[in-house]
C-alpha cells in the first residue's frame, strides 16, 4: 500500500481518528471523547473541524455511523437492525431509522430488502 508522506493537518487527523474506529468504538464516540483522545480543547476541535471539513464534528460522526451500518448490511444481510442500531450507539431504533433515512432517503429495512433482492 502506498504511504502518504508529510505532516497531516489537524482536521485530517480528527477524520482519521474517527474513520479508524471499530464499529463498537464508534457507537460510543462523542466529540468530547475525540477531543480528549487527541488532547485538544473541545471548542477548538469543533471550530477547526467545521472550518476545514465543512461539516460539524457531530454530523461527521453520525454520517460515519450510518456508513458503517450500510457497510454491515451489505456484508451481512442477515444482520439484525436492532442489534446494529444498538452497536452504533443508538438508544432507540426509531432514532437509527431517522438518521438512516436522512442519509439514504430510505428506511433501513427497505435498504436491506433492496440489497437482498439485488443478491449482493
Amino acid at each position: 500500500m502506498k504511504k502518504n508522506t508529510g505532516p497531516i493537518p489537524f482536521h485530517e487527523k480528527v477524520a482519521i481518528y474517527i474513520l479508524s474506529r471499530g464499529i463498537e468504538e464508534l457507537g460510543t464516540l462523542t466529540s468530547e471523547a475525540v477531543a480528549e483522545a487527541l488532547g485538544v480543547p473541545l471548542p477548538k476541535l469543533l471550530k477547526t473541524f467545521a472550518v476545514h471539513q465543512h461539516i460539524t464534528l457531530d454530523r461527521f460522526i453520525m454520517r460515519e455511523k450510518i456508513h458503517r451500518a450500510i457497510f454491515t448490511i451489505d456484508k451481512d444481510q442477515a444482520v439484525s437492525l436492532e442489534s446494529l442500531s444498538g452497536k452504533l450507539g443508538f438508544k432507540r431504533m426509531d432514532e437509527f431509522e431517522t438518521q438512516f433515512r436522512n442519509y439514504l432517503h430510505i428506511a433501513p429495512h427497505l435498504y436491506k430488502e433492496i440489497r437482498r433482492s439485488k443478491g449482493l
Partner: protein
Amino acid sequence: MKPPGLLNVMRKNNLTDRVVEYLLKSTDDELSSLSVEKIAKHFDVSVSFLCRKFRNEKYFTIGKFIFKERMFRAAQLLSEDLNININIKALGEKMGFYDYDYFIRVFKNYYGISPSRYRECVHKKPGSSEAHKIREQ
C-alpha cells in the same frame, strides 16, 4: 413498452422512492455512467419533472444523491480487504470520475481525507493506538 397513462400517473406518485431504489440497485458500472437524463428516460418522465419531484419530496437534488452514492461506493471499495492495493485512479474511473485530480478533491471534500489515507485508516485494526500515533505526529 410504455406503461398505460393511468398506471404511469400512479407510478409517478412514488416515483422518487423508485428512483432511490433504482440508484441503490445499480451496479458500480451502471452508476458510473448514470445521469439525471438517463434516469428520467428510464422512468419515462421529463428531467425537469424528475428533478422538481425529487427535490420537493427528498429535500435533496437528484444530482447530489447520485454524487453521494458514488462517493459512498468509492469508500466502500476502499474499505474492502480485496481492494487493499487497488489503484486510486482506476477506482475513481470505476465510479465515473475520469479526472483524477477532481476525484481526489471531491473525495477529500466529502470524507475529509484523501482516498489513499482513507484506505490506510479503515484498514487499521479497531482498538489500535491510532490516537497516540496521531498525537505524536
